[in-house]
């Protein structure tokens, strides 16, 4: 009735059985060798290869990413360089333009100044020439007037005074 007691007494559970040990060994070893040859080998190889393949893919992706980053970096560098170049060119152009404009303006200014000066000088010369002419003319007229006065009045000294004062007046008036 008491199961546990029966088990203890019977001793059947712990009986050694060489036949069973023998068959266990044989069966297990056969299964082990067949499975090792036909299943575990291919399976473990496949698993390892797949792991390697995945690792390779990851590595390749990493390399590709690094390369792409490198290219991107180079591109942005080039772009920055091109930007700087363009800016430089624009700045230089502007500077050149400014300088050119300043030059031209200055030159024009100088030219104008020069022309004005020339014109002034010319005017001055003309005026002087005209004055000289006028003086000559006035002198002639005076001479002619004097001739006439001389012809009419022989008081030479008196007349000379008159002429002198007249010339003086003329020269004062001119200014």
């Amino acid at each position, binding site marked *: *009735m008491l199961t546990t007691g029966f088990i203890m007494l019977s001793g059947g559970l712990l009986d050694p059985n060489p036949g069973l040990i*023998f068959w266990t060994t044989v069966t*297990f070893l056969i299964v*082990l060798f067949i499975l090792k040859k*036909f*299943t575990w080998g291919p399976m473990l190889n496949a698993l390892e*290869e*797949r792991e390697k393949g995945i690792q390779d893919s990851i590595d390749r992706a990493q390399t590709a990413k690094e390369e792409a980053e490198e290219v991107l970096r180079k591109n942005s560098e080039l772009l920055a360089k091109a930007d700087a170049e363009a800016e430089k060119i624009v700045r230089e152009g502007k500077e050149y333009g400014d300088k050119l404009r300043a030059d031209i303006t200055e030159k024009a200014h100088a030219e104008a100044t020069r022309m004005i000066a020339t014109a002034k000088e010319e005017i001055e010369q003309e005026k002087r020439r005209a004055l000289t002419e006028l003086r000559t003319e006035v002198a002639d007229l005076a001479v002619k007037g004097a001739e006439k006065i001389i012809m009419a009045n022989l008081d030479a000294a008196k007349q000379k005074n008159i002429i002198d004062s007249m010339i003086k007046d003329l020269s004062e008036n001119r200014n």
Partner: protein
Amino acid sequence: MKRFSAFRAGEFARIAILIIPLLFGIGTIARAASSDAGHGEESAGDVIMHHILDSNKMEFDPFGSFALPKLVIGGFDLSITKHVVFMWLAAIILLAVFLYVGNYYKTIGSRKAPGGVANVMEAIVQFIRLDVAKSNIGEGYERHMPYLLTVFVFILVLNLLGLIPYGASATGNINVTLTLSVFTFFITQVAAVKAHGIKGYLAHLTAGTHPALWIIMIPIEFIGLFTKPIALTIRLFANMTAGHIVILSLIFISFILKSFIVAVFVSVPFSVIIYLLEIFIAFLQAFIFTMLSALFIGLASSHDESHEPEAAH
């Protein structure tokens, strides 16, 4: 009124007799029930032991039974017994499944994802490979993979065969578990000798202590070598046997008490629960055996030899 209850009782008994063997693979119950009614002189203990122990007969109650051949070679009894038959059945199942899977892997190569049965088996193989072998053995674990995988699936199928109708689990026999543990023992020793050399292996038996202590240490270490496989043996054997004894005992409560109420409210529901637990234990024990084998191999071949091996004792 009395006739009605008798009719009900007969009905219950018949249902129980039909269902229980189907559910638990315990053909002996039917025999016990009928013999209980017939001569009534077979104790529950007898029936339980009959179910647990090895025998020379394959029984398919109530359809009958046949005797297995007796074989005695050179004074050794090499008879084909019930447990041998179930071991061969397990071997056939394993070979059928895994030869198919192995062939599948040969055809698909490594670049394609596996499907179906191969996928399930791959999950198991990966589990053993990474979580059992690689993490416990470490470097050089590949050499031990075939053994660990085979021992895992072999024990698992043997455990599960005990749970099908008319089945018996050979892992509930101490001779079988002892043999498997001896394999682990030899592999462990070979791994230890390979890792440390004969000199290192013998030095390890002194546990690195002062020579004055050797007279104590060497016997202790020597016994320590054998405790590991013995623990493996007893653990698997006791777990599988205990599960079966619990299920059978629960069922026999109703026969002993001759109560259908007990049968309906105690025996059957509790046996179902234990049965489900047994399915889990079948996997768990196969895993533990493999895990501990891997652990022992790992400890034996570990190069950090001063402290690690002690942890296992």
